[in-house]
């Protein structure tokens, strides 16, 4: 498995400055909208505490709630399947489709099916898979994974979409009007809704007491995917279970406020029983979740409701783009989930953070994201998964920082040093901090020198 080099991968994104500037601005705008709507709710912080506690309770009783969900779903007339990994999930879906001779699948956005790489698996076996969410469809047509879990094509400008659509669905190459592009996708997708053999959604929540699959969307595509074909498949990660209908009140109030800054998604859909004469299948997927549940420091990440607020606020994510993480889940939440899937492949991701803690403070379910990032760094260092240069730099820094004498000597000479060091040393490949940065001018004296001169008399006593 190839190691992801986040810094290297993001350098390409950073070079396209018009994209970078827009990406940064667009996501920060989502963050500001989130602030406005959350601050308008006096009970916001109380809701965060509740949401976190409900999730923690459910996860610490997950076996029971999964069984309760299964029992009720079956009583509703749905068929429940279990899959322990991505390969099993994809096979289960293929088997259901094959049993119905289904050849066309219309689907709503599901990070789980992206995580399982289901689409290429089905396409190789002759199934036509139609992503019906606009952003996800753009990414499908451009043969790229989504770069953000809520807004999959947020790294693209309208001109990029015009190019992709002109190449694939025959729109006017010169027309990058956003209304025109969106309308073209609507017209292109509609016949698929009308003719598809099967429909698919992910799940935002799975309610144990009623066996209901809850899906929060804006485009209407999930409800079209479920309410037209004769076969409906819901793919559900096992951590999506919540105990009761009343708990939806807490989560639904927070999800879209955190994600997009709107009080609710345009559609909050509750799929409980198959329509008359149709079938409903639910695939409950583990794929590493039970492993994470058993990790004392890291199980809290299973509380995630996939709102993307941590990504929108993260300075590293906003300036490096989701694709540079090389994983389905990017940004701060990805950084703490991905290493649990594959420590070697994703070992560089926990270093794609400034540890500023902003992710933690916007998280609606109070995941201690930045603390987990720091803990992953420790795991990676202990298992010697650090790249050589970082290892050597840390060893040298460790020596200097653990000795006050060495530290003072280093700091006092550093100011002078920066001015006189040859540029080759400051900005060489070995010093990652020198790339894209100029070191600020050094102050004329160190803090310690200033303090010794200015401290009040007797301060040492």
């Amino acid at each position, binding site marked *: 498995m190839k190691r992801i080099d986040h810094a290297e991968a993001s350098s390409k994104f950073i070079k396209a400055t018009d994209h970078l500037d827009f990406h940064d601005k*667009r996501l920060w*705008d989502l963050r500001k909208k989130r602030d406005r709507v959350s601050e308008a709710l006096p*009970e916001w912080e109380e809701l965060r505490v*509740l949401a976190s506690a*409900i999730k923690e309770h459910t*996860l*610490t009783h*997950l*076996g029971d709630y*999964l*069984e309760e969900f299964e029992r009720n779903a079956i009583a*509703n007339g749905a068929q429940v399947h279990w899959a322990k990994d991505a390969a099993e999930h994809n096979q289960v879906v293929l088997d259901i489709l094959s049993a119905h001779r289904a050849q066309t699948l219309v689907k709503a956005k599901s990070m789980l099916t992206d995580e399982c790489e289901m689409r290429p698996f089905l396409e190789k076996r002759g199934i036509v898979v139609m992503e*019906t969410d*606009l*952003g996800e469809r753009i990414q499908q047509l451009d043969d790229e994974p989504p770069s953000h879990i809520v*807004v999959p094509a*947020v790294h693209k*400008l*309208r001109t990029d*979409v015009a190019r992709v659509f002109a190449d694939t669905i025959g729109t006017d190459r010169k027309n990058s009007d956003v209304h025109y*592009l*969106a*309308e073209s996708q*609507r017209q292109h*997708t*509609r016949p698929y*809704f*009308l003719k598809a053999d099967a429909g698919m959604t992910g799940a935002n929540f799975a309610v144990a007491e009623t066996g*209901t699959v809850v899906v929060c969307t*804006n*485009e*209407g*595509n999930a*409800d*079209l995917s479920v*309410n*037209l074909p004769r076969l409906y498949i819901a793919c559900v990660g*096992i951590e999506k279970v919540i105990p009761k*209908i*009343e*708990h*939806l*009140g807490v989560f*639904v*109030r927070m999800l879209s406020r955190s994600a997009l800054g709107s*009080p*609710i998604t*345009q*559609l*909050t859909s*509750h*799929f*409980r*029983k*198959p*329509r008359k004469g149709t079938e409903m299948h639910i695939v409950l997927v*583990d794929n590493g979740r*039970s492993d994470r*549940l058993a990790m004392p420091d890291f*199980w809290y990440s299973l509380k995630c409701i996939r709102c993307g607020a941590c990504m929108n606020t993260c300075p590293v994510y906003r300036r490096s783009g989701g694709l540079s993480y090389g994983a389905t889940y990017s940004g701060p939440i990805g950084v703490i989930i991905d290493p649990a899937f594959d420590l070697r492949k994703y070992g560089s991701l926990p270093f794609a953070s400034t540890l500023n803690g902003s992710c933690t403070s916007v998280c609606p379910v109070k995941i201690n994201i930045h603390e987990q990032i720091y803990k992953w760094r420790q795991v990676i260092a202990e298992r010697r998964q650090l790249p050589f240069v970082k290892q050597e730099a840390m060893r040298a820094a460790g020596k200097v920082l653990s000795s006050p004498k060495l530290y003072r000597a280093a700091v006092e000479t550093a100011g002078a040093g920066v001015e006189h060091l040859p540029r080759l040393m400051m900005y060489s490949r070995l010093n990652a901090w020198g790339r894209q940065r100029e070191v600020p001018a050094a102050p004329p004296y160190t803090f310690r020198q200033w303090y010794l001169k200015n401290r009040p008399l007797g301060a040492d006593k």
Partner: protein
Amino acid sequence: MSTRDDILAKVRAGEPPALPLPELRAFVTPGGSKLDAFRTALERMGGKVADASADSDLRGLVRKLFPEAKVVCSATTEVAGNRALGDVKAPAELADVDVGIVRAAFGVAETGSVWLTESELGVNALAFLSQHLVVLLDPDHIVGNMHDAYRDRDRFDAAYGVFMTGPSATADIEGVLIHGAQGIRSLTAVLVPPRRA
């Protein structure tokens, strides 16, 4: 062991020490008229509100709102359309509906949402394949917030139910807001109590 039993055994073996389920208190959305709050919230989400009096001519209102509409399909006996829902064998037959009409079970002031299930819709796809949707809503059937909406557990016995808040929408290209993504292009709530056909 089956995959199911494997997963459940592994989940149970990995469960962290039990933590309690918190009680939900009542969150009361402060003051003012629920009707005004509903109107403001729905308009913020791109929906429209049309005023009607108890005795107003609803068919005439729909005609005035959508003078170009050719196919009007109504799921409520309160307004007549020209496409009968009862004749529909497959939901895709509703693909040419210009205006769908439905009465919502209730509304939510906090968000401007209306609750629709298979009982209200007759054919679920009516609320998505129609180009435009007119939703009749009893002004007395508006709850305060989403906690209130989810409190009545019986509502959620429906096979299918949706909180619909304005028209379908997307902002997936450069954040430009488009109303009429894959589903309805507009939603108009008509605040009027139910009447006999």
